[in-house]
């Protein structure tokens, strides 16, 4: 990965600066000269999209916070005030509420990409775990954000989720009272959620820096899963990756704009336009779509404590992926069996997502139990065993050979 030019300050000021704080050099080596595998496909553009979405959430969020009032009697009205009376307030709010969903769309694609191409394997374990931490922080941030408008779903979602901590043996009830800041979800809860919702995105930004740092130490994975061997296997980040990322980011913004301008409430719940009312429980309490698979797992298990443990476990287990997957081959391209189990896993998560939105009764519960078994089975049984029994396809000798196969066209890989 050597041979790429290093930063040469061009004018006197930059020369002066570079000897004191080599920030231009850092940017240059990270985002200009940085070698990226030449065979990256479009699934590799979601990291850039995620950074963009984090920035978008922080900027729209700071503007919202200028007009929002974190008080049980005023929160709903202040959000409606943003929608009605703040100049382009409707735009800022819809960008923020739909931005959260787009952020999760991107993170799910990003995670699935990592799983398909084995990006979590040696030497990228720490990079992967940092990603899981970002995802957990995003979940916490999104949950607390959804509480802020203080509609019916905000309130009852907060009640259901905080009550989960009551399942902890012995100290459960004290933990819940501590989270609430009282004996029920109320004004202190709303205040602390606002405070945390404001600060966590900056914590995310910090972990993102670590994530990118780790990435730049170990280098990007690529669709073949084999390491770049020479300069022929890589291209410079700029212009190659920048232009590709830019193109996809604009396409992603098209999707984002579709929701913001045309169906801004599609991803939300009608009930959240009813002000919170502790005396009236909605018929179905449903979390935001991005939590639905985990909500289905929670409700599939009849015992509360085990349900909560499974809910937590279903996310935390991702962090152990580098050790659960025993195969030496990274990319699913060369793992015919893994590839099938992987797509079944994706189908399972989508199926669980649908079940999470349905009432927990009859056939829905049975289906959710079956899918929950596969969800965990994939990690605990399939992945460890596959590594031992799967017959993988021969790997190409290098990345460039996989693109320009010398001779035999049969070795042309597809993904």
């Amino acid at each position, binding site marked *: 990965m050597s041979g790429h030019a290093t930063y040469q300050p061009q004018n006197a000021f930059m020369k002066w600066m570079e000897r004191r704080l080599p920030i231009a050099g850092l940017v240059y080596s990270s985002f200009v000269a940085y070698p990226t595998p030449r065979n990256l496909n479009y699934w590799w553009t979601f990291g850039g999209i995620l950074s963009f979405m984090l920035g978008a959430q922080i900027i729209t969020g700071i503007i919202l916070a200028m007009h929002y009032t974190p008080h049980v009697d005023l929160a709903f009205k202040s959000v409606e005030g943003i929608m009605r009376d703040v100049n382009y307030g409707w735009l800022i709010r819809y960008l923020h509420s739909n931005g959260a969903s787009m952020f999760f769309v991107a993170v799910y694609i990003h995670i699935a990409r990592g799983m398909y191409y084995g990006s979590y394997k040696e030497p990228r374990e720490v990079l992967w775990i940092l990603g899981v931490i970002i995802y957990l922080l995003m979940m916490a941030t999104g949950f607390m954000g959804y509480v802020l408008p203080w509609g019916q779903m905000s309130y009852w979602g907060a009640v259901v989720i905080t009550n989960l901590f009551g399942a902890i043996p012995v100290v459960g009830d004290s933990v819940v009272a501590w989270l609430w800041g009282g004996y029920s979800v109320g004004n202190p809860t709303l205040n602390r959620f606002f405070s945390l919702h404001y600060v966590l995105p900056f914590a995310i930004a910090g972990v993102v820096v670590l994530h990118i740092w780790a990435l730049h130490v170990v280098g990007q994975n690529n669709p073949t899963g084999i390491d770049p061997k020479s300069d022929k296997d890589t291209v410079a980040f700029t212009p190659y990756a920048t232009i590709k990322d830019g193109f996809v980011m604009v396409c992603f913004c098209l999707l984002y704009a579709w929701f913001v301008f045309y169906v801004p409430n599609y991803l939300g719940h009608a009930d959240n336009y009813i002000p919170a009312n502790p005396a009236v429980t909605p018929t179905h309490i449903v979390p935001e779509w991005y939590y639905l698979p985990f909500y289905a797992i929670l409700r599939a298990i009849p015992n509360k404590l085990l349900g909560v443990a499974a809910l937590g476990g279903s996310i935390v287990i991702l962090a152990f992926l580098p050790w659960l997957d025993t195969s030496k081959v990274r990319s699913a391209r060369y793992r015919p069996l893994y590839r099938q189990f992987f*797509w079944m896993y994706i189908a399972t998560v989508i199926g669980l997502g649908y079940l999470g939105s349905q009432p927990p009764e009859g056939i829905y519960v049975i289906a959710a139990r079956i899918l929950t078994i596969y969800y965990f089975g994939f990690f605990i049984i399939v992945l460890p065993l596959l590594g031992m029994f799967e017959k993988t396809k021969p790997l190409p000798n290098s990345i460039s050979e996989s693109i320009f196969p010398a001779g035999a066209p049969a070795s042309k890989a597809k993904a």
Partner: protein
Amino acid sequence: MIKRTALSFAVAFVLGAALAAPVMAAEGTPHPPRNKWSFAGPFGTFDRAQLQRGFKVYREVCSVCHSIELLTFRNLSEPGGPGYSAAQAATVAAEFKIPDIDDSGQPTERPGRPADAFPKPFANDAQARNTHGAVPPDMSVLAKARTYERGFPWFLLDMVTQFQEHGPDYIVALMHGYKEKPADFQLPEAAYYNEYFPGHVIKMKAPLTDGQVTYDDGSPATVDQYSKDIAAFLVWAAEPHMEQRKRIGLQVMLFLIVLSGLLYFTKKKVWSAVH
């Protein structure tokens, strides 16, 4: 490559959804029939005359029981709404009595001003519940606060077709839904049977009858027309900047489409050096 992955994804998606989607549990509430709305779709705009008629229905009928506290009189003359002039909005405001405190500190009432919000018809929820048997919900965002389940696969298609008029369709249906109760149905005291209301037992008496409100633009004075007009008015009240949103949306979409095209060809050019 992309095609194959997209195909696998589609298969996984349909499999996942199909595994999980047996028939929708029929709860015995029929789906509200769909109406044609001038504000539907990417180019939708409100029909000014319809909003004015809807406002008349609100003022003469619904406002007796339902508040609309987030709406101000000045909203009536803002662009993208019913299209009243500022002077007309001020006249409407002056016809309402707004509770206030006078210079000596005593509670008093004064004529409304454009900046005032519509006053509530009752002092508090308890009073409303006592009079009407249930609290009539505030109407400011009511059109966005009601919906119904469309079930698989419609709820997915709605994302593409932009169908989002569940709320107004429901309000129209509710106005039509007062029927003779089935013989074996137990209806509590002071409640009414409504086909479209979840559970069918509603505390609101059918609010509209033919001929109740006089329209001066020649539109039919029927429950059907009233209910469509009030539903359209409530959509505007819930989303007063909808026209601006859709208009800017079109500009943004066009801009992004052109930009993505330019970036696509730039990308092709840049990468042609290494492909």
